């Protein structure tokens, strides 16, 4: 039982990161009706920017962290919407989806060529120590990841459902034309969504990079698992992304423990196929109908 709990907590920690990234998928989906295939790279890049500011500009870590996060949110929240989403969405969702694929490659190769292809150590906010609970050793880093990610997601859920701005964001996502008639600044709400996505990606990056090490290729696995998590949980619900992320993280951890490390990547995919067959809208997703 203690062994199972250890795997469960490790899976929840990884799953919390997937959830943060998966929320990005749902936010972009709700505002642009498309999939951001660069979402994994959105989680990879902030850590690289911070390390680049430390190593190339010689800045202290905390200054680099602030500058790196601000620069990332500006470039990949505000800039992403203005430079990629706005021009492409006029031509339909397919060109936009393809543009995000291209962006993914550019971000990855840019990080590799502009900084380094080698993994880099990334400072952790909490010590690499363990605490004993119920007969198992639990990593402080894992606890911190679970708490911080859940707080961030909870705050987002509260913001979206309990504040005027959040409700305006929801209205803009659900029906932008009606929202505009009602006087909601739809363009600003959509921009806010992209800024929130970038901020969550930066948070995920800071939480996971001390464990995965900062590397240009980190986005591949995170992007894939977050995508699976978003579909499993429901592409149009924030709480769905949370449930999907945690589920995928736990299943991945248990698969590595009880099945095989070699097949661990396949198990969440099997889950994905099962969800698509049984509940296509995801665990918490709403059914959507579209006119054609």
């Amino acid at each position: 039982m203690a062994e199972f709990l250890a795997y469960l907590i490790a899976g929840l920690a990884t799953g919390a990161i997937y959830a943060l990234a998966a929320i990005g998928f749902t936010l972009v989906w709700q505002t642009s009706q498309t999939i951001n295939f660069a979402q994994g790279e959105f989680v990879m890049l902030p850590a690289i920017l911070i390390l680049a500011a430390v190593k190339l500009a010689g800045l202290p870590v905390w200054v680099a962290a602030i500058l790196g996060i601000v620069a990332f949110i500006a470039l990949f929240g505000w800039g992403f919407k203005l430079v990629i989403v706005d021009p492409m969405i006029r031509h339909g969702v397919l060109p936009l989806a393809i543009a995000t694929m291209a962006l993914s490659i550019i971000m990855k190769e840019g990080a590799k060529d502009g900084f380094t292809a080698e993994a880099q150590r990334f400072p952790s906010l909490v010590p690499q120590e363990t605490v004993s609970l119920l007969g198992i050793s639990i990593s402080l880093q894992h606890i911190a990841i679970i708490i911080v990610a859940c707080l961030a997601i909870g705050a987002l859920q509260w913001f979206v459902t309990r504040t005027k701005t959040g409700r305006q964001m929801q209205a803009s996502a659900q029906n932008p034309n009606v929202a505009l008639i009602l006087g909601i600044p739809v363009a600003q709400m959509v921009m806010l969504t992209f800024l929130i996505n970038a901020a969550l990606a930066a948070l995920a990056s800071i939480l996971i990079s001390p464990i995965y090490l900062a590397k240009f290729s980190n986005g591949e696995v995170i992007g894939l698992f977050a995508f699976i998590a978003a579909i499993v949980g429901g592409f149009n619900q924030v709480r769905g992304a949370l449930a999907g992320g945690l589920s995928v993280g736990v299943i991945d951890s248990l698969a590595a423990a009880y099945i095989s490390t070699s097949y661990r990547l396949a198990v969440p995919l099997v889950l994905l196929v099962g969800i698509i067959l049984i509940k296509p809208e995801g665990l918490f997703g709403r059914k959507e109908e579209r006119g054609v």
Partner: protein
Amino acid sequence: MQQSILVLGIAAAAVLAPPAAAQEKIKLVNVVELSGAGATAGTNWKNGIDLAVADINARGGVLGRQIEIVHYDTQTNPGNTRAAVQRAIDEGTYAVLGPVFSGPIGASMQIAQRAEIAQIVGGEAAGLTRQGNQYLFRTSLSQSAAMPKIAAYLKNTVKASSVTVVWVNNDFGKGGRDAILPELQKAGIRVAADISTEQGQADFAADAIKVKNANADAVFVYLNEEESARFLRAAKQQGVDKPMVGETTLLGSKVIELAGDAANGVRGHVGLSIDAPVPAFQEFGRKFQARFNYASDHNGLKGYMAVAMIKWATEKQRKFDKKGLADTLRGATITPAEEPGIMITTKIEANGDLDRESYLAEVEGGRQIIKATLPMINP
């Protein structure tokens, strides 16, 4: 008048044209992992080669000719490696340098063999030199040479009666696992758990929990550099407190840098180290640090030695004969007195394996400390 112009023209050509030796450079192509899972190993190997080429060229080159080095990134992909080796041969490389990872070496070594060109590699998988390839040469000890030393270390120094084996599921890792298991059996050490991991794996939490639950006396870790660092960090997070024992890839400077405190206490066998009690290694370490601003791991030393092997064999045969280069290297013993770049007496077996001194080391306070020197197997 016409004669005068002709004479002037010939004189001008003679003055302006550089000597033949300076015109013709020796082209060496390095096919190596500069991105992907092997980037850490490949970058060190490349930098070691660059340092060797700069040193040799500064001393007048090889038989009076300067070396031109070209690097091709394989992205740690066997298909890309094959293409790059073929391209190197098509472009007239004198010898092929690299790659470092055993899988891409295995996938590409037949191409250099068919072209009868020496390929000097950084791989350690035992199987590489068991295929009768007369053109493949190592720069590191083979797993079959290293594993008996590790099994003896586990038994005699660590006093382990049970060991958990953690290995990476690629040619390097599988070769290491296949080499250590019989040696552990011979030493009477029980394998408590046999844990396979994947190349490029980022999350080692589940593996660390497995290691902890196996509760063996020691853990033998045989992963590539980045994965070694991630595993050590995960093991520390899970409170694994058993001795971590490994080979060169576990104790390298990059692993120590990436793993931080989690690397302290790690011990094992290292084939090459800038911290070894060999003045030439330490001098190399200082030059590498000065040029690249970080400490070289064993792959930097291997890259440097690879170029030194080519220089020594070329000067030995007194000509630039590609096939002759391989013939000269095979079965040779190179001493630092003959070729300073080799740094330590190195015996090249007929199958391309190496024999030389190696070391037992431990990581203390974020530094690799050499504890003992092990002699050559067949001096």
